[in-house]
């Protein structure tokens, strides 16, 4: 592992902190959980540095399953073992499950109000900006090497611009990224 000067000193995060941290991430996680997870974990609670968070998110991304759920599993286990995993998952899912069921019950009455639709679309448009701004901020803080920039840009172009299917892109991009990182380190 590379030494990371911005890394916070290791300490075990308590069970209650894990549960309530992920409860907040789930509750706030409009339009994608990853930016909120970073906001709470890196900026608000300082559990992890940007680099550590990106590493865990990267692992969560290439494994099957939602990336923030996988990240919750890994963070929970590292701090409090299997109980930590369950608390992080329960925390992240609890409020969203209640809210989505309530919305489903009132949806037909509410959906016809134009202001409600406009507010939802306005918030969703902001969520898109939240995802972009968070990614840019992580890039600024992590300061990738030139080859890392190229790998990230290739992934962005393939998925975001060309809209190629994710699985084959990941299958090509990950080995390429490993080879590039290895080559860059040898120099």
């Amino acid at each position, binding site marked *: *592992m*590379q030494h990371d000067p911005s890394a916070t000193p290791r300490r075990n995060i308590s069970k209650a902190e894990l549960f309530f941290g992920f409860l907040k991430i789930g509750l*706030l*996680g*409009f339009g*994608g959980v990853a930016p909120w997870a970073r906001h709470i974990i890196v900026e608000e609670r300082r559990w992890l540095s940007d680099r550590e968070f990106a*590493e865990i*998110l*990267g*692992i969560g*991304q*290439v*494994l*099957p*399953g*939602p990336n923030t*759920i996988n990240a919750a*599993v*890994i963070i929970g*286990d*590292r701090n409090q073992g299997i109980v930590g*995993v369950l608390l992080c*998952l329960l925390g992240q*899912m609890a*409020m*969203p499950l209640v809210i*989505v069921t309530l*919305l*489903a019950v009132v949806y037909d009455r509410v*959906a016809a109000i134009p202001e409600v639709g*406009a*507010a*939802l679309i*306005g918030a*969703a*448009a*902001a*969520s*898109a*900006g*939240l*995802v*972009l*701004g*968070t*990614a840019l901020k992580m890039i600024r803080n992590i300061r*990738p090497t030139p080859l*890392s920039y190229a*790998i990230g840009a290739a*992934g*962005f172009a393939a*998925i*975001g611009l060309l809209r190629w299917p*994710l699985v084959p892109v*990941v299958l090509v991009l*990950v080995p390429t*990224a*490993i080879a590039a*990182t290895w080559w860059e*380190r040898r120099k």
Partner: protein
Amino acid sequence: MTGVLAELARTFALLSLVSIGGVNALLPEIHRQVVDIHGWMTDQAFATAFAIANASPGPNVIFVSLIGWQVAGLAGLLVATLALLIPSSVLAYFAGRVLTRWSHHPAVGLLRDALIPVALGMMLASGLSMMRTVDHDVVTVLISLATTVFVYTTRRNPLWALGSGAIVNVAALHFS
């Protein structure tokens, strides 16, 4: 009823193991299973459920939870959610253990460094694809861009930007 629950569990547990990129990447396959193969929902109900899940906070797994709820009530919600979460989470649990255990091995360090740009590229791509789905006029594009700048330049709670986005878009409805 038990038959439906068993079928929900089987369907989503299998999808869980192939869900690289999360639920959104699986959308076409979920549609095929839920609407075409099992006939649990109409096309219209499926689209509505997707809209509701998108308006809720939380991981987009809750779209699958909502399908379970619409198909078989609370039991369906629990079965669909757990079926989708357990297989991939067990895999993540053991993968995370292996990586932590061998964290000082050079190959693990290499893998972790290599995955960072992949994660960042995917995150940028998902922001762009959200903009493409949601932003259909100048106002929404401006809301997205203004939020990008707000999040990039400040450490303030992003909820301010989401609230402002909602208010601006409602105001635009009245002034246009």
